[in-house]
């Protein structure tokens, strides 16, 4: 085990996979010589060279199109889309091409590729560089969707994503890049599609993802200390495939569930999970299903405004204090 930052874990996972498999290649804007605008890919170009780690023009459709064409013909590309907001400029390649080609061709086409992207708010970057768009990806049949909350998960799940034979969008929360955690040494590969129970409680089950996970954990500590409310915290980790087994069983145990989503409210991932619970565990519930989300509004840039919008520890604490009696 070694302590790494979330951003270092990105580079470590990519390096691990590039060392073992020559067909892994990596492309994106400023990812090579500059090591990425978030410094999450430092050292890769130095180790793997010009042919495997390639800077591109500002041509997101070409980046993902090239990744797709290469994946169809035998490579395992990793493509970086610098900010997840920019998925909008290449959304056709994601949702109409990458996601659908295997199906439309009756299974003839392989699509082993990973799209890495910096997602989410908290950096005062304003409405076009702060969105949480994990629900955009979840909405599209044919893509796997992963969003880690810790350096260890970054390493294990990114390695798993690179080995996965299906297309994966890997959402790195940009406010987590500087956070630290213990990461297994040597080869480390996790499994995509497994949620993780990070805290066990009796009174309420909190479902969270990415940046919302540390906030949910902190709120759970405060709920225990200040209100005597004992909360389970589940890190969803992967939206597709969705570990409904773990989620539903943890919901049933407490009979109360709160989702904490960074994506804006309408059609967020919490809506989907809420609807599954409302359909499948209806009779196990002791309380309405509560969703805590960023309001359905573009994100503001000023500190005070942004902090108000993205679910905070105190909003989670207050909401659960009020709802759970």
């Amino acid at each position, binding site marked *: 085990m070694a302590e790494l930052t979330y951003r270092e874990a990105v580079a470590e996972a990519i390096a691990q996979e590039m060392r073992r498999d020559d067909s892994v290649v990596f492309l994106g804007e400023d990812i090579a010589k500059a090591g990425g605008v978030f410094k999450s890919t430092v050292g890769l170009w130095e180790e793997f060279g010009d042919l495997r780690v390639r800077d591109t023009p500002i041509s997101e459709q070409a980046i993902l*199109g090239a990744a797709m064409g290469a994946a169809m013909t035998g490579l395992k590309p990793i493509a970086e889309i610098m900010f997840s907001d920019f998925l909008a400029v290449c959304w056709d390649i994601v949702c109409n091409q990458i996601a659908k080609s295997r199906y439309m*061709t009756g299974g003839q086409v392989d699509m082993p590729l990973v799209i890495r992207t910096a997602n989410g708010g908290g950096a005062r970057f304003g409405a076009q560089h702060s969105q949480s768009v994990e629900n955009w990806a979840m909405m599209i049949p044919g893509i796997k969707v992963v969003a880690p909350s810790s350096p260890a998960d970054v390493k294990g799940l990114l390695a798993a994503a690179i080995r996965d034979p299906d297309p994966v969008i890997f959402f790195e929360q940009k406010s987590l890049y500087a956070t630290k955690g213990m990461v297994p040494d040597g080869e480390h590969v996790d499994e995509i599609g497994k949620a993780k129970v990070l805290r066990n409680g009796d009174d309420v089950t909190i479902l969270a993802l990415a940046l919302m996970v540390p906030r949910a954990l902190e709120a759970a500590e405060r709920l225990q200390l200040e209100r005597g409310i004992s909360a389970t915290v589940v890190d969803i980790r992967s939206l597709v495939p969705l570990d409904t087994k773990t989620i539903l069983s943890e919901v049933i145990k407490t009979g109360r569930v709160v989702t904490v989503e960074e994506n804006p409210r309408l059609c967020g991932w919490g809506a989907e999970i809420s609807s599954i619970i409302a359909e499948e565990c209806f009779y196990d519930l002791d309380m309405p299903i509560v969703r805590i989300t960023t309001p359905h509004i573009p994100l503001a840039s000023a500190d005070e405004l942004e902090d108000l919008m993205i679910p905070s520890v105190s909003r989670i604490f207050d909401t659960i204090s009020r709802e759970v009696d």
Partner: protein
Amino acid sequence: MVKRAQTKKKASAKQARLNDDIGEETRLTMYRLQLEIRHLEQRAHDLFFQNLIKGTSHLALGQEAIASGFGAALRPNDYTFCTYRGHAHTLVRGTSMTGMLGELMGKECGMLQGKGGSMHLTDVEKGAMGSYAIIGAHLPIAAGAAWQAQYNKTGQVAVCFFGDGTTNIGAFHEALNFAAIWKLPVVFVCENNLYMEYTPISDVTAVEHPAADRASAYGLDSIIVDGNDADAVYRIAVTAFDKAREGGGPSLIEAKTYRHSGHSRADPASYRPKGELEAWLKKDPIPMYRQRLIDFGVKESIVKNIEDSVIQAVDEATEAAKASPPPPVDYAFTDVWADGGSSWRN
């Protein structure tokens, strides 16, 4: 008299030479390919009006020389990428006519199991890497296949076919620049049939030659070819492939042509100026090419033999596809993922 004879002799010497650089075998292949496309598409047209093909269908009647010229110049392991108007380009890779007609009819024998339909024909084993129905997307995708060839030094090329209207969408621009800077072995082929659906291309394009006049924006040569002449197309293809295989990077080729039918099955093409179709029918690539074969001394019987066998093949494929049952309903739930399934949960 003497003079005329000399001219004639010169002309036929020239013809012989022309015949030489391509060769009879390749020419017969191209004639066969053009006929296969023509007859298969006419059959698809008929089946549509018998309501045996649903959805939509985009024919390339009149444009056969382009797919055929490239088809003859390709190696089996090269890649092709095409559009919703992709019967021609898929067929020239040697795909099964039954699989193709079956797919158009939504049958179990369909090459995509009834999941793709007319606009998504694909035969990966033959290097036909898909038909793409959203304008522009397949240009960068083809560049990606070429990147694989470059990375693995396989000597393959990727060819990407698209229309004149496609030159005005963003993905065209991104793909061309990207392929040029990475010197990818990809050949972009713009089939300029003068129309973007129902709108004359000149109404919506800032330059006269939608592709060729833009080549310089990517540091590429401006190349225009007669898209109704399979030989001319073949020669251009060979040149571009050689360049690509030698590491010289991409080419952008504009082939001038015309579609005889409407844009899609729903289109009577009433927007065409009077006489335009008639003028182009005179330049129909298939009778022209037949005449050339005869002029070059190919026996009528050989030509006839090809014609008969193509019609027979299309007839047989039609019957086989008609006889095939609809796809089993559980086909709807397979092949989303590599494990063959479609589950998004455990």
